[in-house]
């Protein structure tokens, strides 16, 4: 019998190890697996290569991982968090900056058996030609630069060769799931979540609603079960806006 539903977040995230590469879904606060992130912080997992769109918002989620110095390297499109930039400019964390569509496609490719792909995105820019500081030294000067990438002209357009991402683990958030690992997302909380799961060796999902006795309708599934190793039902972490609204009601 297949039952991927874990008893709690600790059991669901037991596979995550220090040193792992970890793809984390979410954009803004929508679709961030806050409960799973807290669980790996509680186990003192560190030295992570995090792959995500942002370096977090507010104080929790990926921002917590950064603040507690559990991140060795961040692959993202828009760090956007002052604590991350403090550590980046201070030489404490490495940055691999990637255009957003390229990040999505590198994850999709990683989960799809695609060895590499050509994209027109970033052609003629320093993200293709190399040169952006990947890491700063203690003197505040760039100590390591992102390398240039191979390019090729196809039908008169310049394309950049991009390689897939194959993280050890994905931490994702879904709206509904079943014991087969089938998942359904909601609105803009889908974002990178299914792609992160596809790319990872072990994908772990926190899910608002999962009943061991109820399965999703086959046509309602956004991400089929084989992509998902474990899921756990847990109340989504909401922004203070919603807590305040609930308190008033």
């Amino acid at each position, binding site marked *: 019998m297949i039952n991927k539903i874990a008893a709690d977040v600790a059991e669901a995230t037991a596979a995550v190890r220090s040193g792992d590469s970890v793809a984390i879904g979410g*954009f*803004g*606060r*929508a*679709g961030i697996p806050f409960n799973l992130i807290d669980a790996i912080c509680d186990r003192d997992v560190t030295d992570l290569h995090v792959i995500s*769109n942002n370096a977090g*918002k507010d104080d929790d989620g990926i921002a917590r991982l950064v603040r507690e110095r559990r991140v060795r390297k961040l692959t993202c*499109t*828009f*760090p*956007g968090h002052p604590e991350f*930039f403090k550590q980046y400019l201070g030489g404490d964390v490495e*940055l691999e*900056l*990637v*255009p*957003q*569509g*390229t*990040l*999505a*496609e590198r*994850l*999709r490719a990683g989960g799809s058996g695609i060895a590499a792909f050509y*994209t*027109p*995105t*970033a*052609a*003629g*820019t*320093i*993200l293709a030609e190399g040169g*952006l500081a990947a890491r700063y030294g203690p003197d505040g000067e760039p100590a390591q630069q992102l390398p240039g990438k191979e390019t090729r002209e196809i039908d008169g357009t310049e394309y950049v060769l991009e390689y897939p991402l194959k993280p050890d683990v994905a931490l994702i958030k879904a*709206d509904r799931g079943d014991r087969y690992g089938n998942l359904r*997302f*909601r*609105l*803009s*909380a*889908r*974002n*990178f*979540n*299914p*792609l992160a799961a596809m790319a990872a060796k072990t994908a772990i999902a926190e899910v608002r609603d999962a009943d061991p006795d109820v399965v999703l309708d086959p046509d309602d599934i*956004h991400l089929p079960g084989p992509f998902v190793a474990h899921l756990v039902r847990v109340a*989504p972490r*909401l*922004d203070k*806006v*919603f807590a305040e*609204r609930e308190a008033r009601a």
Partner: protein
Amino acid sequence: MTTGYDTAGLAARVAADLRDGWYVNLGLGMPTAVAAHVAPDIEVMFHSENGLMGIGAVAEPGQEDPDLCDAGKHYTTLRTGAAAFDSSTSFALVRGGHLDAAILGGLQVGETGDLANWYVPGGQPGVGGAMDLVVGSPRVWVVMRHTDHAGRPKVVDACTFPVTGRGCVDRVYTNLCVFDLVDGALVLTDLAPGVSTDQVRAATTAKFDTTGGTPWK
């Protein structure tokens, strides 16, 4: 001396060029204001690169949905006909040329249509979807102030900041004027009310043409 459009006036000027049935991505900053000025008798669907087509206004207090935010990470709303999808599909729409226009903010536009809008060296880099939008959209429109906070021109002979894309810009809207890129060269195609060509010339280091050039559609 007039400084041309104010922020709302500039947004309205851009919105006047949107057409019924278009799918459009609005970047952060000045482009966001365009949505509020779309003519009521046309239907324009706005794309948000985090996986939504058909976003509406920012959510009013009490109206927020935790699973519904825009690319600026604000809680947003959806209009009739909206769709939700993952980030890969979202950028298939972008790179695949399925949007009608991308409207972006800008730090600098070069005279051959280069755009710099993501990074001031030494600062805080963040590219988001800008590099995807400028290669994929059939119309790349830039909306920005004509000069920076220190009065330096932003429409320049060559970008000094790292570029977002080369030769990618089709049209530039500023508080002073509109430029079109015609065959890879800048052409002044419209002036803000009360602004003269000489004023534009004084605030621009790019070479541009003031005659000929059919406004690009």
